[in-house]
């Protein structure tokens, strides 16, 4: 699994972006987006903002679970009290053998490996929720900074380390 995490401000401007891979099941925590997919990530994430705004007032919970999908990528969302949006894009990694050199006969098998990721499984939802809550904790500490203005970018390396640690811990 590869993850692309973005914090979006109230004016739909990105405040923080972080890319990482899974650390579960022997993962090394490195994102493995394909080169042509990597630059698509910001577009996919930002296009889900419309859906998020529709859901925003429907439920009072902060964690909105999976709100959107694009091809095999899924987007989970979390809204803070100040309506800052946390978005997490998760993409299952392609098995190395499936990078186009295999004959079509084996495509059903790779598809099976592909679809083994189920974003609505309770365990996955819970893991993503825990990740969001850990980031939210660090986020509240960030905005407690008296020099922090709303919608300002977050450049703190300590915050980035916190997000990375939360990713290693839960995803």
């Amino acid at each position, binding site marked *: 699994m590869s993850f692309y995490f973005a914090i979006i401000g109230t004016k739909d401007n990105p405040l923080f972006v972080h890319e990482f891979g899974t650390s579960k099941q022997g993962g090394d925590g490195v994102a493995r987006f394909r080169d042509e997919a990597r630059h698509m990530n910001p577009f996919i994430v930002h296009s889900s903002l419309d859906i998020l705004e529709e859901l*925003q*007032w*429907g*439920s*009072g*919970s*902060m*964690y909105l679970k999976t709100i959107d999908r694009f091809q095999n990528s899924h987007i989970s969302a979390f*809204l*803070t*009290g*100040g*309506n800052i949006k946390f978005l997490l894009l998760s993409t299952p990694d392609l098995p190395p053998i499936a990078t186009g050199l295999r004959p079509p006969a084996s495509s059903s098998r790779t598809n099976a490996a592909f679809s083994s990721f189920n974003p609505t499984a309770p365990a996955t939802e819970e893991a993503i929720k825990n990740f969001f*809550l850990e980031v*939210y*904790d*660090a*986020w*509240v*500490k*960030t*905005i*407690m*900074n008296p020099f922090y*203005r*709303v919608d300002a970018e977050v450049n*703190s*390396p*300590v*915050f980035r380390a*916190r997000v990375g640690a939360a990713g290693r811990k839960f995803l």
Partner: protein
Amino acid sequence: MASPASTPSVPSQALRIAPSGLRYPTNKKTIYDRNLNRTRNAELSRAAFAFLFIEMINYAQRQVKGITDLEKRLNNQGYPLGLKLLDLLLSRSSTPGQPPTTRPTRLLSLLQFITTTLWKALFGRPADALERSAASPAEYMISDNEPLVNTFVSVPREMSQLNCAAYVAGVVEGVCDGAGFRTVSVSAHWTGNEDGGSGAAGGGREKVMWPGKTVFLIRFAKEVLEREEMLGKAL
């Protein structure tokens, strides 16, 4: 200064500088190492607050053109505090051990959050009343019989309109705006100042009992009411 002998590998400096140029405090504790719940029961000195608040009023009073201007400045000082308190209190208010999960999406839950959670965090007690204005559906009033910020403030006669609780009004405005309930204005008023009107009926007795009673008038923007109406229909 750390003694060079104790840490031979690290250059002795008051501030450790990481390769990225980030400067850590000497105790190596950044804001991210502090606990958000640490101050739940720790109250601050009222005298220290009064001293600070008077300085803030003094600062706001420089080169102001009138009382409205001064109140506007006090309001602006409180506004960022409201934005920050919203998230801080939401992350605290849930039961201990339970992570934060909800945010206010309806008008009433927001107002209840302000009158109970916010007021308790700031002043140690809930607000005294929450009313909806009879004149306009967009207006809500929160009353406080004895605002803490005004405890040590006595307003001179020629400025009798001034209510320094405009600072608290700014905090309330910050909370509302942050939560996505845009406000036209939040203002602090003395009760019994105006002649006639709804407040004057019992105003005489109220005025004696609570001379410092302040009403915070919240005016929500039109789109907030429209959304509220739509949400009300959906249920």
